[in-house]
């Protein structure tokens, strides 16, 4: 999708029921939506359900897309809202903890240290306040800019930066036990 005008045309065709346009829009957006859902929920199946829900809800909202921002940015805002709503309603935190416990038990010899580090930081991320967690996931793991995050969460880019800074402080504290060992990776 080269320009806003192209996006608007594509959206018009999608709403009219043009199957090719619908597939084109889906293909253009699905990977990042799925990745974001996976990062936030921590489970493939949950990410699948969230992604489905995001795209189904998206159709109803497409008609109100005014083109003030890039379509992808706008979609990510819808996605974050739907994923967080879904997460709250299904209490995924507990499920995820169970999954992480199982994964830690099943980890292979030799990789247990890496798993422990990864699990520690994942748990630390899970333990953050929701808005901090989403910002960490979006910025530090998925590479969104503060402007994109601000647009998605309805906050200023500066507020996103401040929340990220506070979240990182907590995550650094959580990693203190691994300090000496992680230093070798630098």
């Amino acid at each position, binding site marked *: 999708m080269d320009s806003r005008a192209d996006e608007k045309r594509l959206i018009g065709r999608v709403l009219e029921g043009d199957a090719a346009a619908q597939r084109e829009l889906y293909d253009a957006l*699905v990977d990042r939506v799925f990745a974001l859902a996976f990062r936030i929920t921590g489970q*493939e199946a949950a990410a699948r359900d969230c992604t489905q829900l995001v*795209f*189904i809800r998206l*159709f109803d909202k497409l008609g109100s897309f005014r083109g003030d921002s890039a379509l992808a940015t706008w979609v990510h805002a819808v996605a974050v809202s739907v994923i967080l709503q879904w997460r709250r309603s299904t209490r995924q935190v507990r499920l995820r903890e169970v999954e992480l416990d199982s994964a830690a038990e099943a980890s292979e010899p030799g990789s247990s240290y890496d798993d422990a580090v*990864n699990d520690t*930081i994942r748990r630390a991320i899970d333990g953050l306040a929701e808005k901090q967690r989403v910002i960490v996931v979006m910025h530090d793991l*998925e590479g969104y800019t503060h402007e994109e995050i601000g647009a998605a969460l309805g906050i200023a880019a500066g507020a996103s930066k401040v929340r990220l800074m506070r979240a990182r402080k907590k995550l650094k504290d959580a990693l203190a036990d691994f300090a000496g060992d*992680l230093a070798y990776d630098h």
Partner: protein
Amino acid sequence: MTTDRNHEDANREEGNYETARRRLAELAAPADPYREEIWQAVGAAWRLKAERRRRIRTITRFAGAGVGLAAALVIGVLIGRSSGPGAGVVPPPELRTTQTSTLPVPYRIAVGEHLRDAEMLLVSFDASGKVDPAVVRSARELAAATRLLIDSRAGEDPEARRLLLDVELLLLQISRLVDSGDQTERQLVRDGLEESSVLPRLQQGDWLQGV
């Protein structure tokens, strides 16, 4: 001296976090293993929604003033709830929806929205005194969409399937009506509405609950 140590600690913390962050970021999300599976559900829902959008536009255009018929349909629904066929009728237990469907959310949304459209049409049909070509055309389109849903994963839910099959039958009957003045066919539809308790079941069911 203390300041230097604090600075070193801060640098070490920063480095530790960056290492852990990089590791986690490299554990990329699986390469979309459900891409096609998700599309099956999304594509089906989008087709239905686009069809619904088109149908609503057709109906409102047919009404001339635009909002006239739409408003009439909405009022019809309200009247239907309070005084139409089945008003105040509590369906027998075996006809009530459990409201705890195990269908995946996308299908519940599709079924819920579809049944809402069907309810609007069935109420408006019963309230009107003659065969309305717009209603007949909408019934035909809704019947086709109903069949799509029955053949989809939504049809695997026994309760949804029963309701959709009953709705489909009524919609097909309405879609074949012609304005010949013969009341027999119309009476068959009315009888079907009464016997199947479709309207009370539609009004009681809440497929969008919790979505």
